[in-house]
């Protein structure tokens, strides 16, 4: 089963002793089956909050406004029991740290059997056969022997492959990969990117890739949402985002990536200033305090989402179609 995912007007705030932290504000995102969606932004931009909201794993002090519709059902309004049924069946998560994704005292095989707990129709033998096939699918040689290994016996890259296999074993309609290559070396990173790209040919659900690494996003995704200080500031097809960015923050972020320059730069470009407080977000555009193109209304009135093309939009006064 797979369906469309749409978050509309999604806001999340955390109640803390110092006040409410507005971690996510009026976020609209949409994903269709078969698409790979990228969410990119720097630390503090709210990408982790967005992902945890989608997976319904927000902590108790979080308050959600708006709707997350998946397959016509509003996830934010489900009771705990039905949320629990959805996770691990429809929604699967591949985390950043492949070391902590597994229980250290159980073998890989036993844990992957448990991952399929919702498949009541399969016997344990059938489940183990599925695991062996899936491990081979994600590029683990000698799958039978690996099923008897403990997590610490695998390297980081191999554990990440197993984590991807575990997620796929549940036949999810929505697969969320949160910084899937951040903990890996560059040669392993290339291999995991390659694997994810291969898998999407047969997988027809939604994949959401969250990363701060522009290279990973460019290599993997069809559409990209750029986040800054809790808002989606720009969204569009990957080519438009990388070759025709319209929001000043997207432009600045791309300009900062040293991987885009081949000749030696004497000074690396940076974004001056710092993130605004999320307890009292600025009344106008969140990026206005650091933006070179800001003018009077930017500081006082939040800009609307300007539709530039059919699927390219930026939250900026300066952007025009």
């Amino acid at each position, binding site marked *: 089963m797979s369906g469309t995912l749409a978050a509309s007007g999604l806001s999340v705030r955390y109640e803390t002793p110092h006040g409410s932290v507005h971690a996510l504000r009026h976020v609209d995102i949409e994903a269709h089956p078969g698409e790979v969606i990228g969410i990119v932004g720097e630390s503090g931009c709210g990408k982790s909050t967005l992902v945890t909201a989608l997976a319904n794993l927000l902590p108790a002090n979080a308050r959600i406004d708006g709707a997350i519709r998946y397959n016509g059902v509003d996830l934010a309004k489900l009771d705990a029991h039905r949320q629990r049924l959805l996770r691990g069946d429809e929604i699967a998560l591949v985390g950043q740290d492949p070391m902590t994704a597994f229980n250290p005292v159980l073998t890989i095989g036993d844990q992957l059997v448990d991952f399929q707990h919702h498949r009541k129709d399969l016997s344990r033998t059938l489940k183990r056969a599925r695991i062996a096939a899936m491990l081979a699918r994600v590029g683990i040689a000698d799958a039978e022997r690996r099923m008897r290994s403990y997590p610490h016996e695998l390297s980081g890259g191999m554990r990440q492959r197993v984590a991807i296999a575990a997620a796929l074993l549940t036949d999810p309609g929505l697969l969320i990969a949160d910084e899937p290559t951040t903990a890996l070396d560059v040669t392993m990173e290339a291999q995991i990117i390659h694997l994810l790209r291969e898998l999407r040919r047969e997988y027809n659900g939604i994949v959401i890739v969250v990363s701060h690494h522009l*290279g990973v996003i460019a290599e993997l995704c069809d559409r990209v949402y750029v986040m800054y200080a809790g808002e989606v500031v720009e969204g569009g097809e990957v080519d438009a985002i990388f070759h025709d960015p319209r929001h000043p923050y997207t432009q600045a972020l791309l300009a*900062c990536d*040293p*991987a*885009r320059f081949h000749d030696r*730069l004497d000074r690396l470009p940076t974004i001056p200033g710092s993130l605004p407080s999320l307890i009292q977000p600025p009344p106008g555009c969140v990026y206005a305090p650091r933006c070179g193109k800001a003018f009077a209304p930017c500081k006082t009135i939040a800009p609307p989402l300007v539709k530039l093309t059919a699927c390219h939009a930026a939250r900026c006064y300066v952007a025009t179609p």
Partner: protein
Amino acid sequence: MSPLLAVEDLSVSFGRSSLLDRLINPFPLPGFNVVDDVTLSLMPAETLGLVGESGSGKTTLARTILGLVRAAAGRIVFEGREVATPSDFRAMRRRSAMMFQDPVASLSPRLRVSTLLTEPQVIQGLPMQDRRAAAKALLALVGLPASFVDRFPHELSGGQARRVGVARALAMKPRLLLADEPTAGLDVSVQGDVLNLIGELKRELGFATMIVTHNLAMIRHVSDRLAIMYLGRLVETGPTQEVFSAPLHPYTATLIRSEPIPDPRRRSHNLAITGEIPSVFRRPSGCEFHTRCPLVQSRCKTEAPIYRPMGAGRLVRCHFPLQTGGREREAVSRASANPRGN
């Protein structure tokens, strides 16, 4: 001009058992070299990038140079004098500094910034009129407000903690700065900030820098020379621009090709490298890269290549180095067009 720092045939061995161990355990594990036979030099005011994957021994090499890890063999020469005894290292550490990997963890959580910044002088017994004033001067050097002297490390952001780390490293006006992953964990917009700061201070104060990193995109812009490590050995050294434009060792070529490109129009469809970095416990025979090398030949499996000069200022450890012409490098991409990343 003589080099500021010269490392000759340096090896570091872990897991070597002591006499007591051997008495208790009759079958001790053999020691293994995490850094093996490294020869390297650094000129005054030069920036060297030490690049490798995790487990390649790059951090251990940096720590050994400062005497934080004991070398099993080899020589370290700093400012023309050999550094061997603990007191030599102490004297050397007065003229050199290290920035550790984790910026927040390398600052003691219970000390204020003023104390942290002036600790090096106190430890080295340098006279200081006013600790707070000295700390404020150092903060000004790295572009932080003087009010930060009363802050604790947890009150700093990642970028600010890095700047405090830079200030502390420069407190003794070192001739040599060893920076271990100076940008790990920083956002791309802040990473440039820290590197620009180190670059500016370097021009102003004229120290030499060794940057240990796995971030190729960054090191390309900030280093004069590169040294690439694989399994504790250097496989290639050379001027940064030349190494990037025409790598000699297939490992260097695959590292450069593995880096994801932030351009969806230039997606790499072939995998540059497969397999994983072998363990130092079981070093492959012959050339250690042969298990993953796209251009492996039978000689590579049995005979270890020597580290030999090739062209001006370049060294490579390979029987069949890639030439500067385009043909061989095309061969790397074709040979590595393996559809499955295992």
